[in-house]
């Protein structure tokens, strides 16, 4: 039997396979090249960029929790300019599409960042991070306010001639509501989910562990919440979905795909196993072979028709 097809299409982008990197967990790609051949990934999603550089939150910025981690990086990033000058050229060597995540405090910032990136050669799509729980203003406010989310989406679509993927926050009453609003606003695809808002306390020092007090929960612990979000949004909107949240192995990835994700992103698992992305690509291929499935697309949403 010939090898099954792993290629998927997201927002007009043809991807070799459905395995992406989750923004903020894979740096700008180069950090993982000692372990991973970037050419074998579906796409590289880089750390969220803001128009101007950001310092981020004060440490500690990470703490381990049961089957998860809390982080409060606070969008530390070099800004769009330096990304274009220092990081994008390196990524251009690879045949893998580069998806650039952008964040901001104001619509204007999103738009300005988007325009600069749209002009650059080697940026395949934009992911709007409107759901970062770790920055005081901006970030999450758009993520939990449907109007704000729609407005950012519309503005960026107008400003940049690139596919726009909107990344949704799980910290809302109705993620399907958010999904519908940004879909109507012109989003080409949706990423879900970003981290859950959480915190940890050091009972010996009697204070929050994180310098920022609260942080974003990620890792296997949140997988059931993420799978549910993908499941519900798949039924609510027609857009292609990129599922993420606790994916650590191929079986996890397939769970998201059957829930309705056309692609998946691997985040926290990179920290545990630097080759997680590649192993998941291989594992999905093996599953397809073992189950006589010729094309990954046959599995997208498969669990809805049981």
């Amino acid at each position, binding site marked *: 039997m010939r090898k099954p097809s792993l290629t998927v299409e997201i927002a007009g982008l043809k991807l070799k396979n459905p395995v992406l990197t989750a923004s*903020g*967990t894979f740096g700008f790609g180069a950090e993982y090249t000692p372990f991973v051949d970037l050419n074998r990934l579906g796409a590289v999603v880089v750390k969220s960029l803001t128009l101007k550089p950001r310092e981020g939150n004060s440490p500690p910025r990470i703490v*381990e929790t049961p089957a998860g981690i809390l982080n409060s990086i606070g969008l530390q990033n070099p800004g769009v300019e330096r990304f274009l000058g220092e990081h994008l050229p390196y990524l251009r060597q690879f045949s893998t599409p580069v998806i650039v995540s952008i964040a901001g405090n104001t619509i204007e910032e999103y738009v300005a960042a988007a325009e600069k990136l749209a002009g650059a050669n080697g940026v395949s799509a934009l992911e709007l991070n409107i759901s970062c729980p770790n920055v005081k203003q901006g970030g999450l406010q758009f993520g939990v306010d449907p109007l704000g989310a729609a407005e950012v989406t519309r503005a960026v679509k107008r400003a940049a001639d690139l596919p726009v993927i909107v990344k949704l926050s799980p910290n809302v009453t109705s993620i399907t509501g958010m999904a519908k609003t940004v879909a109507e606003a012109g989003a080409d695809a949706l990423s879900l989910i970003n981290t859950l808002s959480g915190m940890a306390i050091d009972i010996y020092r009697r204070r929050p562990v994180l310098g920022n007090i609260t942080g974003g929960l990620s890792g296997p612990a949140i997988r059931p919440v993420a799978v549910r979000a993908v499941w519900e949004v798949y039924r609510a909107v027609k857009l292609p979905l990129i599922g993420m949240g606790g994916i650590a192995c191929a079986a996890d990835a397939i769970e998201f795909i059957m829930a309705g994700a056309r692609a998946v992103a691997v985040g*926290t698992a990179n*920290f545990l196993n630097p080759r997680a992305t590649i192993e998941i690509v291989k594992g999905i291929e093996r599953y397809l072979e073992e189950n006589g499935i010729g094309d990954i697309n046959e599995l997208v949403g498969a669990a809805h028709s049981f």
Partner: protein
Amino acid sequence: MRYFPAVEISRQEKLAADCYRISFISPEIAGLARPGQFLHVRINPGLEPLLRRPFSVHAVNQRTGEIALLYRVVGRGTRLLAQKKKGDLLDLIGPLGRGFTLPAAGQNVALVAGGIGIAPLYFLLQTLAGAGNSPDVLLGARTAGELFLASEVRELAGKAAVLAATDDGSYGHRAPVTELLAKLLAEKKVEIVYACGPAAMLKVVASLLEQYGVDGEISLEERMGCGVGACLSCVCKMRDKKGQDVSYRRVCLEGPVFKAREVVWQDFG
């Protein structure tokens, strides 16, 4: 830097209450490792603990390719690590980070270790001794029991002075090890100081170095995610060369060893 998913443990030795030395054979790591670098260790394959744990390369036997890590049990991960036995497997990434810049031949060097801070300095001492440089070594600990490596250090240090201090006076001088450093700097022309230990101690070391205008490098610790520079979890605030604008730098990539004068101490203990 490489990924070693399955390295077999060759030895697990309990050196003192809560202090262990774990060893494994890896000529590759032995060949790559530089003093001050660390390994990012996945203690168990499952989810307990979830994150890797960073440990400095403590000792390297170039002949046998055996690497040792020295660690203190302080929480869940190290407790699980201490349960590992000869023959069990470890999952390692490394060697990682920027190590110590070695001194020029014949420079006067001093090493200052606080408690488990001896871990990376021992490998540095091995390297210096190999290059014929015998630095002064200042060892600090809470009690005599924690100076378990003093004799091995003496052997390595050769003709150089090895001074010890304990908080409770149970061995050597009853003083913080930083007092020994103050004395040394006052009495002798030291050109470079290498230090590792609790943040509070390093802070004092840094101010002494400034006071005496002596160069120094220190090894810092911060909580890590990836260990390879991708997640920005492990940052510490640093001054740039000119001592002017401050910015966050990654302990796992730009560190763990930094110039003493670069560190902005407000962030610590």
